Structures are given as structure tokens and as C-alpha cells.
């Protein structure tokens, strides 16, 4: 049996509050905050159509310079063209208004000025607000393009303290102004009423009239990719939930890391290839005009960046992850294991990065794909290494947020790493080239559900307890955990791409012969590295102490040092020397 509803009583709401009210039964994308506002021309409405009635009683069209004028066309057709005078039902001009300016305007429209404006082609000549008058033509008198004029009209302010004056001029067939201007005084229209609805001045169909006709014409392509939040440019392929990672990404690294063109016409596996970096290359493989008129409803819905089938299903997160028994235990784990481990990982990955050959020296005669694959591998590896450095910062930030005055930066790399399924196994840290074996270990380290992943999932489960922790903290742990999936995929992608260079004979072609150098050999690089560590230490201390300008000064220095370190690492690697990031490594 239905319950008896309780009477609803709400304090009177303003325009914003009424617009924000969430009506039961309406999906979020029925609201205007789910619709794109930068319209050229737009999808749900063209906001520029509001400006055509910016001034009470007048209706304009913004007109551009014609590209292919026919001989019989009048000259100088561009600008804000007065379509007609429309004052009778304008809500700003009630017949019985006590406002002088309203009655003055009504008299003008009903009288000679209305008659005058009813014949010939009239255009906006200037507009004024406050002390500022803007002429709608350039130095030599050439009228501005309608889009330029629109920009000025869009810049007018509404309100009783912002009066607007304007002048209209008539242009004859030759585009020459042939009569005295008409000056009018009033106010800019307030486009929405206090009830949050567009002014009644706008007729049904008027606010969508300049959208594409049919709408699908624009949906097929437009000179500007300005609405990917509704019409994606690039997406990932649909994923089978049975073969997905906890983030929902495909288990298949190529699939998970390949951006597809959402508008591709071949939606079979044959068409699922990487989108290109220019419109000219993508276009021949996209749905055409006209074709889109029927095919638009076959385009896939995209959720979490991936194409989805008939039903979207939210990902299931790792099961059986329990919070730490106490804050102290979580802090201890972060200090003694997780933060040091992040430091070790970032250095291992950075070391491996330097062991990748220089793409410019690749033997492209023997290996035609090597240069491109090296560019890919280097980008992927540096992304992961930067990601780990970010994690190190996140782990430290968690500590300073939780420990306050007791916080001390953790910037000492762990001597061992624990990874693998369940409780994992302990392995010594190791600076080594990006061999197949190294990649395999990196994959295991980053594997979803593995030891490290579950450790951060525990942090999330702990910090999610709102009665104990500020809500923003858990996002730091979530960031690390989510990135882990991405790192896992990246290493598996690297493995697939680089596998072909493992011929079993000597060093794979994508590697250069690098061995861990001595401290003497790498003295300069190690000095820079010491500066980096010192700078990070000081930056974290400053930031923990909420001295943000000082923290940024240190971080800027670190950035500069890291850039030098990257160059120095390249130089050393070219001489077959790897940077001994930790001293206990046997050369």
C-alpha cells in the first residue's frame, strides 16, 4: 500500500535554486548543466539566438560576409541585421508600464520610427553601455562581420543600472547608408525570468532555429571538436566485464591503450584501429553526411571512456579488503613499506628508461619499426615513472595530513619489494635494463589484486570511514590504486610491442648496453639526484607546514634538477653507464 505523502513546504527559491532542483524521474542529462554551452551552433539550443532579442522590441540576425555573393545580392549584408520590429507582446514592453523609457520606446515603435524601420535593410551601427560606445565598423567604415558584432552584444550587461543605447542605420542596395540613424534607449533583456524560464519573447522553435538542419549534419563533423562531453572524439573499445581489470579497463593492453575514433563507420573488429592525429586522416573512415541520418542511433554510448553495449554495468571493486585496525598501523605501513617502495619503483623505472636505446640511432634498416617503438616505449615508461613519483608524494602527503607535527619526509628507497599474489614474496630491489624478465617483474609488481594494490585498497577502506577521517584524504589513496592498473597495462603493452626484438641473440635491439656505474663515473648525476632528494625533502616539509610558496620554490628547483638529471642520464647511458641510485648495488 502506498504511504501517505507528507506535505512538502519549501522556502521560496530564486532562479538558480529552481533551476538546480532535481526532479524525481529525470536523468541528469535533462538539466542544462549537462548540455554544452559553447555553441557553434550548439546541440540542444543555440545560445546566440538569445542575443537576437537583446534589445526590447527588436529582432536581429547576426550575418557574416557572404563567401559567394550572387550578382543580384545587395552589398554590405554583414552585421547585426534588423529582421523586424516586434514590440507588441514583448514582456519588457508592457502596454501599461509606468516606466518612461518603456513608453518612449513604445511611442517610437508605434510611430514614425516603427514605420521607418519597416522599410529597407537596417543594421546596428553602434551600441553603448556606460561611457563605452562601440562602433560596428572598422577604420575605413567597412561594417563588422555579424559574428564580431554578436560578441559585443554578448558582452552587454543586464540590470536597471546598466542602460543601453544603440543606433540603427539603413543601407541601400549598394551598401551605402542612405538615411539618418535611428537612436533608441533602453536596457538589455534579462534572458531568464525569476522563475528560471526563458523570456516569453522567444517563440517556439526560435532557440533551435540556427542549429544544424538536420542536427545529425553537425553531429557527423564540425570544424571544431568542442563538445566531446556529449559527442566523444576518441574512446576505448567496449570491454567484456569478464576480461576487465578493477578499473573496468580491458585486460588486453592493446585494447585498453588504443584510442578509437568514435565516429568510425566500420564498427567491426576490422575497423577498431587507432585514431589518427589529424582530421584529414580520420575522415575517410568516418560515417559520412547523410549516412549519419540513419546511423546516429547505432553509435555507442560511452561510459568511463569506453564504448558500452545495451547495458552499462558499474565495475566491481576488489572484494574482501578490510581497513587497517588502527590509524597507527596504517601510518606505520605507509612510512616503513609503501612510501619507500614508491621511491624504489620510481628509481627502478627511471633506471630502466635510460637503458632504452636512442630512437635517433635505431637500426631502421634491420628493424623498420624500431624507432617508433622506442618512442612509444620511452613515453610509456616515463609516464609510469612520473606516476610513481606522484605516488611517492601522495604517500608522503597522506603521512603529513595524518601525522601533523610528527611528520618526517620518507625519501629513502626500500631495499626490498614485496609483490605477487596474496601475501606476495620479497625480492631485492634491482637497477636493471628493461629486459623481458624485468618487464615481467614490473607487471607482477603492478598487477591488480596483487600485494601492493591490496595494500592501497586497505588505505582506501580505512580512509573511507567518514567518522574518522576527512573525506578528501581517501582520494590520495584512490589515485595510487587506480594508477596501478594503468601501469600494469602499460608494462604489458611494452612487453607485447618489444617482444619481437628478443631474437635470443645478444641484447635486444631496443636496449643499449648499460650497466650500473660506479659513484665516480656517475658523480655528477648523483649530485643532482642528491639535490632532488634534498629539494623534495624541503618541499614536503614546507608543504606539511602549509608554507606553499616556499614548497613551490623547492619543487621548482627539483623540476629543474630533474630535467638536468634526465639529460645527464642520457649522456651516461650513451657511454653505457647507468646511474647507481642506491649505493648498495653491486656494479
Amino acid at each position, binding site marked *: 500500500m502506498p504511504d501517505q505523502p507528507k506535505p512538502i513546504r519549501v522556502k521560496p527559491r530564486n532562479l538558480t535554486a529552481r533551476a538546480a532542483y532535481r526532479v524525481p524521474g529525470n536523468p541528469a542529462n535533462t538539466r542544462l548543466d549537462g548540455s554544452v554551452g559553447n555553441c557553434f551552433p550548439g546541440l540542444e539550443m543555440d545560445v546566440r539566438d538569445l542575443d537576437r532579442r537583446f534589445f526590447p522590441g527588436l529582432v536581429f540576425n*547576426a550575418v557574416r560576409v557572404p563567401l*559567394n555573393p550572387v550578382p543580384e545580392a545587395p552589398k554590405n549584408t554583414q552585421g547585426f541585421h534588423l529582421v523586424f520590429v516586434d514590440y507588441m507582446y514583448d514582456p519588457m514592453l508592457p502596454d501599461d508600464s509606468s516606466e518612461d523609457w518603456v513608453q518612449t520606446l513604445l511611442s517610437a515603435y508605434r510611430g514614425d520610427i516603427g514605420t521607418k524601420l519597416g522599410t529597407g535593410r537596417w543594421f546596428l551601427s553602434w551600441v553603448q553601455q556606460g561611457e563605452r560606445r562601440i562602433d560596428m565598423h572598422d577604420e575605413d567604415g567597412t561594417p563588422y562581420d555579424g559574428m564580431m558584432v554578436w560578441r559585443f552584444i554578448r558582452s552587454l550587461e543586464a540590470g536597471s543600472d546598466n542602460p543601453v543605447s544603440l543606433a540603427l542605420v539603413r543601407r541601400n542596395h549598394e551598401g551605402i547608408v542612405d538615411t539618418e540613424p535611428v537612436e533608441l534607449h533602453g536596457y538589455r533583456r534579462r534572458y531568464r525570468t525569476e522563475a528560471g524560464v526563458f523570456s516569453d519573447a522567444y517563440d517556439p522553435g526560435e532557440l533551435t532555429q540556427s542549429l544544424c538542419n538536420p542536427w545529425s549534419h553537425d553531429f557527423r563533423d564540425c570544424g571544431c571538436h568542442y563538445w566531446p562531453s556529449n559527442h566523444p572524439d576518441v574512446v576505448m573499445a567496449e570491454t567484456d566485464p569478464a576480461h576487465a581489470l578493477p578499473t573496468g579497463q580491458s585486460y588486453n593492453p592493446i585494447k585498453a591503450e588504443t584510442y578509437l575514433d568514435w565516429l568510425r563507420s566500420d564498427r567491426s573488429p576490422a575497423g577498431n584501429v587507432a585514431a589518427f592525429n589529424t582530421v584529414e586522416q580520420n575522415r575517410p573512415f568516418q560515417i559520412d553526411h547523410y549516412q549519419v541520418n540513419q546511423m546516429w542511433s547505432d553509435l555507442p554510448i560511452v561510459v568511463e571512456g569506453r564504448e558500452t553495449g545495451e547495458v552499462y554495468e558499474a565495475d566491481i571493486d576488489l572484494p574482501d579488503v578490510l581497513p587497517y585496525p588502527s590509524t597507527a598501523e596504517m601510518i606505520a605501513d605507509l612510512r616503513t613499506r609503501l612510501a619507500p617502495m614508491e621511491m624504489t619503483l620510481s628509481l627502478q623505472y627511471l633506471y630502466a628508461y635510460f637503458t632504452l636505446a636512442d630512437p635517433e640511432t635505431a637500426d631502421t634498416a634491420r628493424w623498420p619499426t624500431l624507432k617508433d617503438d622506442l618512442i612509444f616505449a620511452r613515453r610509456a615508461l616515463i609516464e609510469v615513472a*612520473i606516476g610513481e613519483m606522484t605516488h611517492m608524494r601522495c604517500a608522503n602527503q597522506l603521512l603529513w595530513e595524518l601525522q601533523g607535527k610528527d611528520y618526517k619526509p620518507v625519501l629513502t628507497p626500500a631495499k626490498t619489494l614485496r609483490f605477487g599474489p596474496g601475501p606476495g614474496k620479497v625480492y631485492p630491489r634491482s637497477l636493471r635494463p628493461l629486459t623481458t624478465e624485468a618487464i615481467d617483474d614490473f607487471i607482477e609488481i603492478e598487477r591488480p589484486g596483487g600485494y601492493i594494490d591490496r595494500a592501497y585498497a586497505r588505505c582506501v577502506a580505512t580512509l573511507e570511514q567518514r567518522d574518522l577521517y576527512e573525506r578528501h584524504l581517501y582520494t590520495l589513496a584512490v589515485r595510487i590504486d587506480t594508477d596501478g592498473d594503468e601501469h600494469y597495462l602499460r608494462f604489458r603493452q611494452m612487453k607485447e610491442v618489444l617482444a619481437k626484438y628478443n631474437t635470443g641473440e645478444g641484447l635486444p635491439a631496443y636496449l643499449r648496453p648499460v650497466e650500473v656505474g660506479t659513484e665516480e663515473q656517475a658523480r655528477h648525476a648523483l649530485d643532482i639526484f642528491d639535490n632532488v632528494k634534498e629539494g623534495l625533502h624541503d618541499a614536503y616539509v614546507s608543504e606539511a607546514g602549509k608554507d606553499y610558496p616556499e614548497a613551490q620554490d623547492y619543487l621548482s628547483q627539483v623540476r629543474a634538477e630533474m630535467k638536468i638529471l634526465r639529460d645527464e642520464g642520457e649522456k651516461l647511458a650513451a657511454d653505457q653507464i647507468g646511474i647507481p641510485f642506491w649505493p648498495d648495488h653491486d656494479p
Partner: protein
Amino acid sequence: METIREIFFLPPMAVARLGPGKTPLESYEWEQDVDAHGNNQTVIRSSVTLKESEDGSISAYLPDPRKIRFRDEDTGALRPVAPFFELWARLHDADSGEEYETPITPDLLDRHGLSLKHVRYHVTVGNQKAARRTGDAACGFRVRTEIAGDDFTRKPLLAFSPHTSEQQPLVYEHNPIPLGTVRAIRPVPGACETCGDETVDLSILRLRFTPPPGEVYGPPDAAYGPATLAVPGYLNDPPKSEYGRIHEIVPPQNRILNPDTPWSQWIMMTGLYDDPEPHDSYDGARVGNDQSWGVVDDTSDGTIEAYLSVGGERLTARARIFTGPPDFAPDRRPFYSLADDLDDRDLSLIEVTEQTYEACKDEVIDIFRRAFETNSLINLDDIRAQGLKDNASLQAQTKIPPTPGLPSTDARSMTEEDAVPPDKIPDLIRPQPVSVFSNSVPNDRLPYTVAVKFVHEQLVDEVALLDFLRRRPDYVKRLLRPPFGILTQLEADPNPDQEPNPAFRDPRIVRDQMHDARMPPYMRDSNYYPLSLSRRQYHLVVSFIDYLQAHPPAPMDAGGQKDA
């Protein structure tokens, strides 16, 4: 004693979305994913959904919160989005002197000696696209329907072209175009249903607008035609003989329009008409002589009105309805939405104060979250190339020198050689030569797209964002492209090649028309200039940063632990 002072609809304006499916899309809301692997991203989760019954009443239910069906089960057809409008009243309580708002129900009407017979609805929607282009009102089509308050049958909205005896109607009365349906929902007095945490009052007076399937219509000869090969924005199309692939334009059953109207003769950019911009936005553009195929769609916009007669007076409620395309990425939101644009036009700037800090903080965080959501689906490599090519054309015409202190506008843009190098991105895309085109390789075809997502992803977290804004206030301010100024800020007569004002742009200054790596990079606004946040959003972000600088938190506050 209470009196009804006003009636109004909630929502005041709503978007319906096309879909050929038989069942409307179930409701959902945006939420922040709090799972360990959720990346703190905005996700969609089902919410209370209302289902129409045969008799016009509704029931409420909560679908599986982790599943959303976008297509019908049997046909796979995309489901339409069909919004409800609730009718509310503002009442004055004579005893307390207070005013309050409440939904209108049969009980409320009864208390005022009224019934559903005192309610009447008018719904008017139209499609003026062809009329706008041709300047001929008979090329528009519209429909108006009146519904008695106690009539709960679904009303089809069958539109045709109004015309005078000398005009040719585009859409014939005997062959109208369906623009959807509208239905007054039968209120069930005294009934409500509880779904999860939410209780839905089923006695509220509601209207539901259901959009049409999303068909195109045309005259009999709009059958098959060659699609254009031209890329939008290019001035010189390929030779006319190089026609593209041939496709069906309008399905046979929809070739019902009058072929003898100006819309079938219309050609863009001749100087005879007030072409809307973009001008090549119709079927027929950029092929042959650009003549229109006379095609229209079944989208529309219009008004929903309710009238209530109270004591011999008429109270009126109005709402606006728009029928638009589906939202194909429902969990990704625009950072510059229609709501943002409208607020920018009609509301004053927001001042960040101690009292408004929390609300401002939430809005700033949300802007950055929405920026990530938008750029997570953008092909940045592509739009960078387009934006820089546009810059090159403008540069060739104007020959303005680079502006000191502003980012590069040529091929150095967003590379290590940029006059204002962006953060992290050059490290992530190396090696990137100074080129309009990104260094695209197999397995990494879109390096800028990957890099910008990586960078923005870090800023969706509140703690990371606030730290970033506190540490690098000047950098962030410099990174944001300023909006266009309001009229009173602009100079009367600026020199086109003068240096821009750092706080706002002027459309007459050439540098202000050029793309660069400032946020949002290479996207376009409503008149094809580089896009910025709205003036209101920009002012909010900058003011918020200033506030953070002026109000640093107390040092060494272990703020994260509530029991600390």
C-alpha cells in the same frame, strides 16, 4: 488561510533527447566514484525512475543502481530521454505571514475549492530551422495542443507548416511531422512510494514530454546523394567533380515534404539570406552548387504552459522544453555548460568570502573535474593541429609579432620551445619536434591526448587541486585563457595588433583571436574564437586563488584525522 500566489513548473527548463526506443531511459545521477579503483571520477548511478501506467498514472521504482540500460531489450533501439515537469505553487499563509512553495496536488486544489477541471495545459513546439535560413515562415512547422487537467491520454504533437494562400507549406497538414508526445500524468491522491532514501509523491500534478525517434524528412527527390569530401572550416573545397560516397539521405517513407518551397532551392552564402553560422550546416552543403536537399529533422523547442483559474483570476506557469541529440557520454560533463552560459549572462560575479568559501570551493573543484571529463574524450592532437593551422592563416593575413609574456601561437605551441612551456606535457610527449602535427607513432598515435589526460587526472582530487592552486597561484592564473571583456571594459578603438589586456580579451585584437596552450587549449567558443571559461567562472577561479593566497591554513595542522 492560505492563498495561491504563483504557479510554476520544476524544472523550469529541460532537455528531452531523441531515441527510437519504446521505453524512456531510466533516471540516473552523477556521483563521485569512491571505489579503490574508481579514480575519483564522476560516474553515473541509477536513481528513482517513474514509470507510466496505461491509465496515465505513474509508479516509482529504483533500478539496479549499478546498471543502466541504454537500449531496448528486444530491438536494441536507443532509449529516448523523456523529462517530467512538476507543477508547483507559491502560497501565502495569512496566519504566519510566510510564503512557501509546494507541489500542486488534488488535495491542495481541493483545499482551495478547486479541482483538476480548473487546470489546463498548452504545449507549443516548433522547428524553425528551414524558416530561419530561407526567411520564409512557411518553411517552419509547429504544433500547439491543449489538454484539460483531467485528460490523461497521451497527445501526439503532429506539426505542419503554417502558410498563407500564396505560400507553399514545407510540411503538409495531411502529412505532419511528429515532434513527440505530451501527457498529463494522472495524480493518485494521497499516494507516495519510497525508493531507497527517496520518497516520491505520486499525487503531484505532472506533465511528461516524450521526444520523437529522431527521423529526417525531405521531399521525394531527397533519396540518394554524394556526401561531401570537404573538411569543415576550409575555404576552398575540392573540385566539384570529386564527389564523395553516395548514401541514402532520407528513408522512402519520410520523403513527404513539399518539393516546391524555398528550402529546396536554398544555397548558402549567396548574400541573399541571413545565413546562420556555421553556414554549411545542412544536407547539401559543400557538394556541387551547395543547394539544399530540403531535409529537416524532428527536433524542436517550445513552451509548456499550465493555467489555473483561482477566484476568477488566471495563474500561469511556463516551462521550456528542448529536444536535442542523445548524450552519448552521459558520465562526462561540459565545463562550459548551458547553465554556465546563462548564469554568465544574467547573474552577477561571485565574490569569495569567508561565508561563500565552501560553496565557491565546491564550484571550483567541479570546474576542474568537468574540465577533465571533457578532455578525457577529446582528440587534442587533432584540434591542436586545426587550431594552429587557423593561427597560421590569421598570422599570414595580419603579420603580428609574438606578444612577449604570452604563449606561442605557432608550431612551438605546447612544445618545449613554447614561449610559456606547459607543465609536464613536454616531458610526456618527448620527442616532439616544433610542428603543427604531433609526433604520432604506432601504439601512441595521440601523444597530446594521452598527456593532457594524465595531467588533468591529477587535478580531479580536492586535496591535490587545492595544493596545486596554493603552490602555483600565478602559474594557474597565467594558464587560464581570459574571457572576453564586458562592453564597458573594452577600449573604444583598439589597434588590432596591440598587446592584449591580461585580464580580458577584445574580439578586435588579433592576438586575442589566436589559439595557444592556455586552458582550454585549441577549443572553440560560440563564434569560432578560442574558448575560455565564462567570465563568471574565470572570475570565480581567479578570486578563489586570491582568497587561498590571502588565507593560508594554519601551519602544522594535522587536519586529516578527526580523532587526532
